[in-house]
């Protein structure tokens, strides 16, 4: 079992490190005093407060609502704030999300992700089935765990990716002033809904129950219907002429 130098029960943590401007990353080990119920984010805050004030990581709400503390914990996409740290003696590997440029340590550049979401333009608020006058926040918390976990985005940066396609599907279901046809048009491309390989990793890691894979399948259904309808229309017109 790991112990701190004071003999307390500890969790051994290995953290990806890279300063802004460094070309190569390295990994640092820390023994973090164990407390019952602690989360991976608690571990990182403990390191920052007591061992290394230079450790950089993103966080805000601490309850899986803001989406800022996405990272890979033991090689799996997680929100650090709701991921149990484990038990004394456990080893935890903490790395930044994949598929995004690392700015420093666990902080990745979210700009490309938000630029692609902005292109879809999904509003932050949605209708509520219980309260038709009011609106509620969309389920997606823009954490980009799905984009990190997707094996297609990992190999091809041109793919729209699960978050953007899930946002596209939300605009189709509830346009809220948007041009749904134009949004669907963008999804009907090789790098759009058709590029998904059905690995379903996106829906597995989504911390907000959005089910991007399901959304992509519904997009394909809509697109297929549209193509079939167009085909039938053309065939009928052809017979008449």
């Amino acid at each position: 079992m790991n112990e701190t130098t004071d003999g307390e029960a500890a969790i051994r943590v290995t953290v990806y490190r890279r300063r802004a401007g460094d070309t190569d990353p390295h990994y640092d080990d820390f023994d973090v005093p164990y407390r019952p119920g602690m989360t991976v984010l608690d571990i990182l805050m403990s390191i920052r407060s007591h061992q290394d004030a230079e450790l950089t990581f993103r966080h805000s709400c601490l309850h899986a609502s803001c989406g800022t503390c996405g990272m890979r914990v033991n090689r799996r996409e997680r929100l650090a704030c709701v991921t149990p740290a484990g038990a004394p003696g456990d080893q935890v590997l903490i790395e930044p999300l994949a598929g995004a440029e690392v700015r420093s340590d666990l902080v990745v550049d979210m700009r490309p992700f938000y630029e692609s979401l902005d292109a879809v333009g999904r509003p932050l608020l949605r209708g509520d089935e219980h309260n038709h006058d009011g609106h509620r926040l969309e389920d997606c918390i823009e954490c980009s765990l799905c984009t990190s976990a997707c094996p297609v985005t990992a190999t091809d940066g041109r793919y729209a990716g699960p978050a953007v396609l899930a946002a596209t599907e939300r605009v189709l279901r509830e346009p809220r002033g948007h041009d749904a046809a134009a949004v669907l048009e963008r999804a009907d491309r090789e790098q759009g809904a058709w590029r998904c390989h059905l690995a379903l990793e996106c829906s597995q890691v989504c911390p907000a129950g959005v089910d991007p894979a399901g959304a992509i399948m519904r997009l394909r259904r809509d697109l297929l219907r549209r193509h079939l309808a167009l085909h039938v229309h053309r065939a009928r017109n052809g017979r008449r002429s």
Partner: protein
Amino acid sequence: MRQRVVVIGGGGTGAALAHDLTLRGLAVTVLERGELTSGTTGRHHGLLHSGGRYAMTDRQSAVECVQENRILRRIAPGSFENGGGLFVAVTDDDADQRDEFVDACAESGIPTRLLSRSAALDAEPGLSPDVRLAVQVPDATMDAMRLPLRFFATAQRGGAVLRPFTEAVTFVSNGRSITAVVARDHMAGRNVAVPADLVINAAGPWSGRVAAMAGAEVPIRPSPGVLVAVTGRWCTHVVNRLHKPGDGDIVLPQRGLSVVGTSSWTVDDPDEVRVSSEHVRAILREGMRLVPAVGAASMRAAWAAVRPLIGATGSDASGRTLSRTFRCFDHAADGGADNLITITGGKATTLRSMAEATADIACAKLGVTTPCRTRDAVLLPHTAYYTSAEVGA
């Protein structure tokens, strides 16, 4: 050359200050030791106060809340869940406070609508069958991070420089005047000196530490509260208990979660706050009295947020009687530094008015006469914070 203001603290107050001062033509830099909104701001329950919560005990805060509630809805359209709020009586003692509460709301300018037991249950089926009556108020909910990001995004588009992961460490002074803030850029691992004509300390519960860098003191009482999120959206209104503010007396919906809050105590060090299982149990036990389903739902998270309340050390140990209003301290008057202001206290709903009051003082000190424009300037969407950033600057 434009005069330079350095704001220390990238929470809601810093966000609104950056926006206000940028609109008044000043060159603003915000220094934040971690990610923006990672201190207190991002952790709050997301309530856009109607003011009802403070109507009976803290009239000034109640009036501030209802005024700012209206302004924020105007300048940040698309940010609020408009489910409304209910103040619910679940005991006879609660019900006895009905008239006092309704009168206090009327005197504060907060519109109310009285609901009978059956009308309350129709409006909010998630309520406890113990409900006696309810009073409806214009509470709403927000995303605790994304509303401040709209202020940051708009300020950034106007030229403000936002520096997350950059921690203020010392002041460079000339006599009694600060000339620069030395800060540690944790991303690059080096110190930077940011020149300043004026410095505003907006570090919330950490503002005592920042003021101490100039030898000044602020009477700040870091006052944590525990919040609990459970899976499932068990009410569509913000459900408050109709009584004087206490533990576990608010349940609100947030995306697919319900958030129950909160407790209140005071600490010396805002970085060392533990969430005790007793607080979690007590909050859920009380929350169940309002919305029973939260007691059976699975827990998603339990966390603490530290309020920056104003009060002398040794005053009220629970923090409950400390006012939720805000105060500005001009440290020219207390022997700190001639060009340092601290803004503290307040709450998320009043971020804009806190910034206005502080920016008025800052501008008076700098000789800037441009009036505040934040009551009417509509904010950019939160996504613009990311898409308009100069990454790697």
